């Protein structure tokens, strides 16, 4: 196999950098890469950290750093290919870099830290008014400003429609675009995140319910001797996580206040476990009485849905052994953990640890009930 430089193994990494349009980094940078760590979470901003070896009189310290190659707001795109299938892991911007100069030879490093492209939406505070626009239209209007970074909007209409009426209420935005979009998502039980890919330079801004449906990814096997693909897996069952929101709403015409019915969260979160967790806590939501009825209902639904995930799992795997890159924000099956904890889970977050010769992933899984719904998982 000592043949061609196309690849030394089944996993290849490509690093692209540049101000707005990126191009592949010079070979000196690739050679100096010591490690990269990329974190992606559903409903939160992704981040990354990369460490480079800083040789004295090397190209990075002599030429690239003074030229501003690693300056903040430089765009970074990381693509990994497993068995020839490329997957964009990150599309982000550098926020800061640190240089640790050491007396030991070979210990001087450059550490670059950054966040994904939603950082762009968090730079500038603005006030704006959105008369007669329901939440999903407000979100698409905010997102349409960021198309020049290759961000496409994927916006889903909210579950409980909130028809606006400018005569009674005009919604205002204060703060950054990201804050506003995230607040709107939380008020509806939705999530907002950026999906990099499918090709370098393109990404999708998703505003909608967590996608807890569809074909699961290849299952994680644990405690199965040579067939195990996961190094370790821990499950936690938090009984107090689930709460029952109590929302009261006052009718402005009659001044009577009514307790809203418990919302049904299963359309927003299709159940993954057979035995649902009972809600131990009762939480009274404040400030719902003076809102529109639809808004109060949406808030109660969002609260009930977000708190429903009582079971969480975390673990780590080696991509070389597993054979696939575990993708966040999708379903995955688990087998070998026993009757109670087997079955499908939603992958909440994944942290990729890359270094020459190894690709490790740490992940967290969630679902709302015990016991798998089906006897099989996708192998």
């Amino acid at each position, binding site marked *: 196999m000592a043949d061609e430089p196309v690849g030394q193994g089944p996993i290849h990494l490509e690093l692209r950098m540049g101000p707005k349009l990126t191009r592949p980094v010079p070979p000196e940078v690739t050679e100096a890469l010591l490690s990269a760590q990329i974190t992606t979470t559903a409903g939160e901003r992704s981040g990354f950290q990369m460490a480079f070896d800083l040789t004295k009189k090397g190209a990075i310290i002599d030429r690239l750093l003074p030229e501003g190659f690693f300056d903040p707001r430089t765009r970074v795109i990381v693509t990994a*290919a497993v068995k020839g299938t490329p997957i964009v892991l990150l599309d982000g911007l550098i926020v800061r870099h640190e240089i640790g100069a050491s007396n030991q030879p070979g210990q001087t490093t450059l550490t670059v830290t950054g966040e994904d492209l939603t950082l762009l939406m968090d730079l500038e505070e603005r006030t704006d008014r959105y008369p007669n626009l329901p939440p999903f239209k407000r979100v698409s209007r905010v997102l349409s400003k960021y198309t020049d970074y290759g961000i496409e909007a994927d916006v889903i209409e909210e579950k409980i429609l909130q028809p606006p009426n400018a005569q009674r209420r005009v919604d205002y935005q204060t703060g950054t675009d990201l804050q506003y979009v995230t607040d709107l998502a939380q008020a509806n039980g939705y999530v907002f995140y950026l999906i990099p890919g499918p090709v370098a*330079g393109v990404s999708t801004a998703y505003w909608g319910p967590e996608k807890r449906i569809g074909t699961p990814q290849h299952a994680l096997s644990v405690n199965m001797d040579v067939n195990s693909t996961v190094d370790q897996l821990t499950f936690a069952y938090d009984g107090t996580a689930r709460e029952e929101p109590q929302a009261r709403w006052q009718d402005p015409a009659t001044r009577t206040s009514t307790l809203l019915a418990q919302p049904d969260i299963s359309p927003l979160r299709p159940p993954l476990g057979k035995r649902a967790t009972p809600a131990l806590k009762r939480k009274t939501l404040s400030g719902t009485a003076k809102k529109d009825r639809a808004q109060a209902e949406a808030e109660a639904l969002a609260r009930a849905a977000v708190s429903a995930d009582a079971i969480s799992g975390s673990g780590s795997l080696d991509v070389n052994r597993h054979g696939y890159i575990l993708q966040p924000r999708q379903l995955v099956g688990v087998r070998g953990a026993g009757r109670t904890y087997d079955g499908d889970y939603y992958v909440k977050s994944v942290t990729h640890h890359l270094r020459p010769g190894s690709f490790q992933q740490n992940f967290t899984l969630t679902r709302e009930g015990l016991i798998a719904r089906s006897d099989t998982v996708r192998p």
Partner: protein
Amino acid sequence: MAEPQPYESALDAIPGAHPYPRSSRYHDAEVGIHTQPDGTAVRYVKRRLLPPLGEADEDIATHTVSSGERPDHLGQRYFGDPAAWWRIADANPVLDPRELTAEPGEEIALPDGFPGGGGRFGR
């Protein structure tokens, strides 16, 4: 820019719903719907156009075919997956993949440095 979609169809575009896995050459092909005269809708995969070949670069990696080699051998050797031979076939203008390795001693082009790094999506 895509229009907002209604909540009911939100979960239609689910991950993994595409009939072809990510490693397949038809993963990026568009799925069309043909309506037959009697009204039944048939889903079909639209024609996949080959990505444009890169300009004849002098530093492109090549492979010299030895006798008895097959395209899947090359896929295993360069990508770690015998099913990935089509990436090599894409980089060489051949009609039949068996033409790739038909003549021992011939030099064939390998996809540009990093698999999927350029050209493949016609961008």
